[in-house]
């Protein structure tokens, strides 16, 4: 079979062969369902009616209007953006600060940097559950509050405190992410310009602001971007800690789509909303990959 073995010998053919597996899987479980969603998104399909999706009533592009015109969904989008806007800067500053503080040589450095990354490696579902245990009425956070202030707060059933608890869990888990990236970036900085600045009489703060920060622009941008994008996906903590409650107080985008799709089985509407999120994220991601692309090329 000369025809078959040529696939391994001719570079142009071998290239196609190499790409083939990923394309098969990609088409099978990403492209086909995506095309399907465009159709289902424009029907009012609810699987409880025991009809198949291709028999559901077609309502057309007006479905997008219905999907957008959903206060709970819009609130979840706004809330997710808000969580990201609060959590990401805190994680960034904290992670950067830790990376800077632990930079030089000191006894126990290895141990501290090792421990500092541990939260990131905890399975988020388990992490969410531990934070549930800690913020619950009989948990240790309330225990400490009792000792020092004598009051106790029902963190997870108060709308504001529930949101704060979830943010704290996210900060706990993802500050190490920034810490790791910034540590690596700080360690790989060339020392000559920094020493030169000191020789020329720059103060520590001046050297930090005018020499170190500009050299860290690329990794800072990458860390912030990746964290910002990941923060839009937040799901495990609200799911484990509050189930989106009390009421809708901690419902995020993912939580909202999960509930309306898989709990209330409004497939048609959820499909449309998924599409909207999908398109919005593609636009954001398109700009987000640019610095990654530049860093990969080593520019």
């Amino acid at each position, binding site marked *: 079979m000369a025809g078959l073995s040529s696939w*391994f010998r001719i*570079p142009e053919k*071998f290239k196609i062969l*190499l*790409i083939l*597996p*990923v394309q098969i*899987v*990609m088409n*099978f*479980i990403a492209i086909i369902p*995506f095309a*399907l969603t465009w159709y289902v998104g424009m029907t009012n399909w609810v699987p409880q009616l025991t009809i198949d*999706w291709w028999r559901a009533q077609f309502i057309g592009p007006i479905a997008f209007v219905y999907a957008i015109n959903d206060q709970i969904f819009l609130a979840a989008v706004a809330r997710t953006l808000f969580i990201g806007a609060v959590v990401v800067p805190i994680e960034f500053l904290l992670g950067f600060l830790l990376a800077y*503080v632990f930079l030089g040589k*000191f006894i*126990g450095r290895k141990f*501290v940097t090792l*421990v*500092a*990354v*541990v939260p990131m*490696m*905890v*399975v*988020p*579902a*388990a992490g969410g*559950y*531990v*934070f549930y*245990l*800690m913020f*619950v009425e009989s*948990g240790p956070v*309330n225990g400490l509050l009792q000792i020092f202030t004598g009051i106790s707060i029902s963190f997870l059933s108060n709308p504001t405190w529930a949101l704060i608890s979830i943010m704290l869990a996210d900060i*706990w888990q993802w500050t190490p*992410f920034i810490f*790791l*990236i910034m540590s*690596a970036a700080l360690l790989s900085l060339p020392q000559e310009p920094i020493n030169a600045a000191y020789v020329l009489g720059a103060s520590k703060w001046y050297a930090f602001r005018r020499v170190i920060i500009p050299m860290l622009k690329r990794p800072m941008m990458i860390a912030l971007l*990746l964290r910002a994008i990941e923060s839009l*996906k937040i*799901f*495990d903590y609200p*799911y484990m800690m509050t189930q989106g409650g009390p009421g809708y107080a901690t419902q995020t*985008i*993912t939580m909202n*789509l999960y509930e309306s799709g898989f709990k209330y089985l409004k497939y048609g509407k959820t*499909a449309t909303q*998924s*599409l909207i*999120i999908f398109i919005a*994220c593609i636009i*954001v991601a398109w700009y987000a*990959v640019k610095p*990654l*692309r530049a*860093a*990969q090329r080593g520019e």
Partner: protein
Amino acid sequence: MDPRYEKIISSIIRYSFGLGVVFFALFPLYWMFTMSIKPFFEWSPSVVLWWPNNPTTLNYLQLFIPVETLAEWGLVNPATDPIIHDTATRAIMNSIIFSTFGTLLSVFIGTTAAYAMSRYRASGDYMFLTFRMLPPIAILMPIVIWFSTIRLLDSAIGMILLYGLFPVPFVIWLMRSFFDDLPREIDEAAIMDGCSPAMTFVRVVLPLVRGGLAVTALFIFILNWSDLIVALTISHRYAVTIPVQIGLFESDAGHMYGVMAALGCIAVIPTLAFGLAIQRYLVRGLTFGAVKG
């Protein structure tokens, strides 16, 4: 300022930050572990118990041994003690099987594609990166509809396929950074010596990046093992994984704190072990090869 004082002050700052980090990073894990060895009457006390007074392994036993057997042994009393009705063995087995085979699948399809992108200038790498930026739920809804049409919902095959697909962008970008680190002259020399492109890839290049392959595989395993949302939407009864199961344990007595914490501890062990093993490469993995630690 006197440099000697500066040194003392900076080490005071360092060690106080160090202490803070150790406390805040480890306390939740301490709490989960102690909860997992507390007997049920210590789960939700009126005054916080900072350490277990009556340590027990019963929570772990309940995860693996059916409650009837435990009752026969006289370890639990189903009439009065809070119990779980199903063991977690299925979830644990599922997690191991899905994560392992999903990882193998994604490393296979991702590595070949990464090689094509590194050496043959195949396109598509940015499409995959963009794909990774999307929230999984936006893609899961279509997948659920599609899987319900072809009867793959709540099945092992469906889960393995998804665990093979979702991490592919990571595999492509990570492996590409390892292939790019390898001088092209090696490939060219092999071709000059009469190797076919396929032989060059399998016999020459792959053995040279086997370290990178191992790092990638462990990294992907962690991602798959940690997943909650995919398993939650695809599985109902049969294909549940550990993260899903943690959320499922409830009984007539309310939340099964100790048993859930025990399962949480089991869930954390592999990710901690593998994560620390590949710590040096975590930055590279998490930034898609953009920052090389």
